[in-house]
């Protein structure tokens, strides 16, 4: 079984949906990212999503945009992120890691090197936000060859035919965009989310993670009722802005713990 699907299955065995936190790599530094990763894993996160900063994050809302900008100003590069992942693995971080990236940094590194070097560093999968399956043939081929799992997005505008294509192209899980729009916190979940998720669950074979706009434990619980995993990004990313990274990590721990508790589990003890 895939490492990603395995982690989601592991959460299911504990009677809850998997919790997938997202942080922007290099915001405010890669050392801080390592601390956040360790903290979130200790809080009980099942999979970690690491955002690769890009100059033009047109699918992201203001919180993730400014996080990417801070990371780039600090000199964060894709190679640097992979080095940081290598260190995280060496220091015992064992939950699966998925890179969330725009396509150009991947293309610039080369599809083959991206897949190979990501795996070598200890990255388990990747989600490329502006690479739909229709354009992904050679990337998928390289990913399969090196053992990198491929996660694709589905959204409320995805047709049933494309949903099947997305399912066939995805390993690990399919990431469902909870509502039309960019990443970032929203007051309410979409009123039609439950119904949409039921349709998606009825079509795809892979586990379904839901994200975009989920920022509170209540929203996480509500979304989790119809999905296998919940992704929380901006609500955590906004803590990274705090002047004191230890304080930021504490706030991430607090929110992640409440989220996981809401999903039906008490936090695991510190590793």
């Amino acid at each position: 079984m895939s490492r990603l699907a395995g982690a989601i299955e592991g959460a299911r065995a504990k009677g809850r949906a998997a919790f997938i936190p997202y942080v922007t790599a290099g915001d405010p530094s890669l050392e801080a990212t390592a601390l956040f990763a360790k903290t979130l894993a200790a809080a009980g996160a099942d999979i970690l999503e690491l955002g690769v900063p890009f100059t033009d994050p047109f699918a992201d809302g203001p919180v993730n945009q400014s996080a990417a900008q801070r990371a780039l100003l600090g000199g964060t590069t894709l190679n640097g992120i992979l080095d940081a992942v290598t260190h995280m693995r060496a220091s015992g971080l064992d939950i699966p890691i998925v890179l969330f990236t725009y396509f150009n940094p991947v293309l610039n590194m080369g599809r083959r090197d991206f897949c190979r070097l990501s795996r070598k560093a200890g990255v388990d999968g990747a989600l490329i936000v502006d690479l739909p399956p229709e354009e992904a043939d050679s990337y998928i081929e390289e990913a399969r060859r090196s053992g990198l799992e491929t996660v694709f997005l589905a959204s409320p505008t995805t047709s049933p035919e494309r949903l099947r294509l997305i399912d066939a192209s995805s390993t690990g899980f399919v990431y469902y965009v909870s509502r039309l729009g960019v990443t970032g916190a929203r007051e309410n979940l979409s009123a039609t989310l439950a119904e949409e998720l039921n349709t998606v669950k009825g079509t795809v074979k892979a586990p379904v993670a839901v994200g975009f706009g989920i920022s509170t434990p209540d929203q996480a619980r509500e979304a989790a009722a119809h999905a296998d995993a919940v992704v929380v990004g901006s609500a955590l990313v906004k803590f990274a802005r705090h002047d004191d990274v230890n304080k930021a990590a504490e706030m991430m721990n607090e929110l992640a713990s409440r989220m996981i508790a809401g999903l039906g589990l008490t936090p695991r003890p510190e590793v």
Partner: protein
Amino acid sequence: MKPGTGRYGDFGGMYAPETLMGPLTELDEAWRRIGSGPGFRAELDRWLTDYVGRPTPLTFAARLTGKLGGARIFLKREDLAHTGAHKINNTIGQVLLARKMGKTRVIAETGAGQHGVATATAAAAFGLECTVYMGEVDMQRQALNVFRMQLLGAEVKGVSSGSRTLKDAINEAMRDWVATVRNTHYVLGSALGPHPYPAMVRDFQSVIGREARGQVLNSTGRLPDLAVACVGGGSNAIGLFSAFLDDQSVALVGVEAGGEGTDTPRHAARFADGPTGGRPGVLHGTYTYLLQDADGQVRPTHSVSAGLDYPAVGPEHADLKARGRATYVSATDAEALDAFDALAVTEGILPALESAHAIAWAMKTAPSMKRDDILLVNLSGRGDKDVETVRAIKGKGHE
């Protein structure tokens, strides 16, 4: 979508976020189905004639030709289209299509403000709601166009992220569109972005080349030897080139923004040779030449003209370059400003600073051509919007 859809050789494609894949496919189908129908074409032609004022004239630049002493220079006068630039050809087409698709709102990005004005104009004429995204740097250098858009009933939203120029306005328009796509059409202003935009925008701008080809034939009895246009995203250029692609005797030249020179990093010449030039990459949904750093991050650009100040270029231009069918050169800020002055005093025409780049290259090249050669320049827009910018620059020069 079939494999290879929207490809120009290796370039182009549909590198869009998932939420836009369905809507882009719908747009592609609507453009093919409704947009190619005789009813739609007749209606579009009526609007282009009765509202835009087409055909735009072809002007023989007699004094400029005489002064340079080489090829005969003809100007395709897109500056005389309603709103003062070629942008209206595309916005009328797209807004007409959006209305037939049942959309009630349109959004657009704008650099120089000409596309924003043209979208606001079409939206007003068809009774649609309109929001235009514009980088804050561009709002300053094109303040007059901001007010024009507001007068036309559009809401202008300043973009403060990134370099606060055209690319950031596109980012913000895409963010709006992913949230509002059910009732909103995104009127992308150039022949770039994900399929079907490069093909559709070229289609709506091809009227420039069709008219110009006929007009040159009519007034000289033959085809031009050279057709030149400025290239930001590349919509006026592809509109002009499209009519001549099969005429192998017609050399096609696109002029990019050389800014402070392509030996510096401060330019927007994606096709420039050497370490400061671009290389293939993906931005805003398309695979094309892109100004990027060693890590695949998009580089800041510079040009005196907001409309050329963009790090990527329409994918069909990348293919025309790869195939050697068109040549891409650049003109610096200083050369464009000189051309702006020269056209004003020799022909009584203030060109847009974007178009002045094409004029600059024509002025450099015409003297080395034969006297019976024909050089066709697309004068893509008028320079009224740039008067403040030019005055500020001249003011500085006199200090």
